[in-house]
């Protein structure tokens, strides 16, 4: 075969012409496409001028509710276009948010967990919201629950607007608890505010359900392990990090007390499963195989859909006494930094934020405790059960300690949650787990902050 002599290659000329024209056409398209995200990305212009670009990380029931709120915003503000993007929770979301901001193509408004805000501020990725702007939109301290507003202030400046607090709570199966004699005259759960009271309740619930007293996700879920530990540990007044994470102040005695107790629940007394993943825990509770379920309040939608008899209340105050404490985080709305002064953009962003906050009641139906006081104090919210049962948790909220490696879905939660899981699964003794926490945290504490 001698391809070079083949006449087939004569028409190659026309192929070349064809290729050239293809290139020309593609080039033309690229230039013409400045209005598209790709075009805007290439020339660095605003993706869609005059539009509110909004990013969030809400899936499931939250996602549906947020969609309703966005539709309402579109109705209220026909003059503003809205481009909403939902990304996967956790790392994928925060990675994209920080890269988009670094690339000067950030959304106008984004959702961020409050525990992530200090890191973003340290990295200079968030725009400060000036008091005069906030005043024009009534986004001022007196309209927010005190604890949530305080959390959004960094060095006296406002970088985030709180949307809600989402605490770790206790779900209970009302049928099982009634049969176990755990409901009071008003059909509310009796207080379970000591080690013994909780063990007693779980034992009785276990007898009724025939399987488990309570379930709390354990496998492949470092975050939930951290949440249950942190709730109990902070009731004892324990702290893990100090000096922005450069110092480890883990109190071994208090941690040991909590881990011993958690171990007794799952391993020694088998009141809770020592091996169950997130989906499994939901399934066990939804199918009536456990009397209690411990998780953030956002799972409310799942059990409502399952049409099961359940209610919710504060996570038990096992150690706190008069100082109740519980693990929580806040969803906040932030305005990522974009180069150049652009008052119009700020106004668009604040208009949008104001609209979302005004619809806090819709949001609260998904379980979150609204930060917006006009709604939190409204009769409608007070009558919203079981959502308002645990509203007090917002003021007792304990967030992840401030550090560049801490916050929702962070390596801090992975390190702590992994060690806690070994105890709850009966794979390691509490003292071994505590030693592991110290070792792993030390590596992070010794690393120079990347922000």
């Amino acid at each position, binding site marked *: 075969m001698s391809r070079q002599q083949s006449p087939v290659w004569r028409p190659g000329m026309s192929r070349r012409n064809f290729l050239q024209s293809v290139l020309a056409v593609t080039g033309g398209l690229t230039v013409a496409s400045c209005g598209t995200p790709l075009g805007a990305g290439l020339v660095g212009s605003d993706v869609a001028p005059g539009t509110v670009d909004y990013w969030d990380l809400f899936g499931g029931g939250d996602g549906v509710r947020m969609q309703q709120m966005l539709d309402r915003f579109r109705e209220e503000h026909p003059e503003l276009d809205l481009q909403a993007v939902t990304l996967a929770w956790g*790392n994928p979301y925060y990675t994209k948010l920080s890269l988009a901001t*670094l690339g000067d193509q950030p959304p106008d408004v984004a959702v961020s967990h409050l525990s992530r805000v200090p890191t973003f501020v340290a*990295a200079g990725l968030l725009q400060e919201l000036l008091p005069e702007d906030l005043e024009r939109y009534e986004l001022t301290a007196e309209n927010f629950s005190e604890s949530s507003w305080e959390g959004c202030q960094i060095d006296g400046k406002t970088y985030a607007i709180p949307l809600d607090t989402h605490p770790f709570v206790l779900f209970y199966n009302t049928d099982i608890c009634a049969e176990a004699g755990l409901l009071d005259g008003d059909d509310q759960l009796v207080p379970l505010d000591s080690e013994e009271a909780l063990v007693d309740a779980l034992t009785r619930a276990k007898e009724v359900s025939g399987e488990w007293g309570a379930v709390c996700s354990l*496998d*492949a879920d*470092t975050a939930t392990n951290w949440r249950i530990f942190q709730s109990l540990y902070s009731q004892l007044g324990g702290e893990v990090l100090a000096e922005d994470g450069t110092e480890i102040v883990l109190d071994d005695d208090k941690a040991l007390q909590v881990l011993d107790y958690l171990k007794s629940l799952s391993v020694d007394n088998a009141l809770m499963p020592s091996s169950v993943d997130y989906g499994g825990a939901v399934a066990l509770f939804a199918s009536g195989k456990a009397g209690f379920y411990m998780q953030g309040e956002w799972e409310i939608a799942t059990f409502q859909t399952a049409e099961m008899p359940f209610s919710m209340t504060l996570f038990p105050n096992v150690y706190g006494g008069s100082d109740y404490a519980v693990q929580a985080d806040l969803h906040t709305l932030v305005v990522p930094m974009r180069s150049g002064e652009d008052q119009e953009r700020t106004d668009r962003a604040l208009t949008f934020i104001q609209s979302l906050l005004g619809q806090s009641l819709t949001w609260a139906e998904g379980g979150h405790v609204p930060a917006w006081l006009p709604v939190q104090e409204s009769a409608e919210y007070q009558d919203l059960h079981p959502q308002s049962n645990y509203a007090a948790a917002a003021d007792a909220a304990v967030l992840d300690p401030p550090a560049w490696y801490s916050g929702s879905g962070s390596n801090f939660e992975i390190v702590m949650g992994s*060690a806690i899981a*070994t105890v709850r699964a009966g*794979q390691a003794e509490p003292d071994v787990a505590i030693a592991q926490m110290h070792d792993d945290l030390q590596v992070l504490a010794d690393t120079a902050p*990347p922000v």
Partner: protein
Amino acid sequence: MTTQTIAGAGTVAPAPPVQRRRGRGRQALLFLAPFLILYLLFVIGPTIYMLIMSFFDSSLVRPGLGSFTGLGNYIEALSSEDFWSSLWHTIWFTILTTPPLVALAFVFALLADRVGRGRWFFRFAFFVPYLLPSAVMALIWIWIYTPAIGLASDWLTSIGITPPNFLGDPNWAMISVVIATVWWTLGFNFVLYLAGMQDIPRDLYEAASIDGAGPFQQITRITIPMLGRTTTLVAVLQVIASLKIFDQIYLMTTGGPNFSTRTSLLYIYDVSFTDFRTGYGAAVSMLLFVVILIVSFIWLGIVSRQERGV
């Protein structure tokens, strides 16, 4: 036949006139351009950038490269326990997956090759799992492995065996991921083997059976030796694929329980994206790159020796 002619033209053909070759080179480049441009843009470019970045304390939340740290990142990685344990988990996963994925693929291909009627069905059945996206495969196996209510525990309990906590026990997690992976990726090697077997001239078997060789002898004396190159190819591709393990583990265990399935790529993901430390992540990536490069060279050596031997 066609393949042979083209291969001949490419490798053995005497040098054509120099001018013409140059002209065709330009033409060839034009046709290769779409690939080359994308390859430069998305593979070579980022690789060079990663190499440069590995000498800086770059961060995901800071623009630019950051400050120069020399070999600091490499020293930190090499003295980090987490780095070594994740590298070991990667190698352990490779050791556990490669032999079954080569041997089982061979056995199943052999069986499917013997089937007279409905061979397409077996070929299809073994290949289908490979077509599943990793997320679907992970979900299926998470359901199978779920403690208490999962399929596997259900079956094992019904025959009187206490099921282990497949994904929750550090001793079992890796093995569970390995089993799922073997089921998922076996089809690819299976098809390679099947194609290799169909290339073996049938008269060899005929001649062997006339000479009195039984089925077993035919396999050991004809099939296995004739598939030598296929086996090398399958093994090389498998080792490299296993060293790059990420998807299934990220989805099924996220590196747990207690880091027992955290492989190198998961470690790189954790430090680069969870901890924002892209400079350090780049250095660890370079180290993993070197490991894969070494493995590739070893296999290349074996292949070239094989080819000289043939």
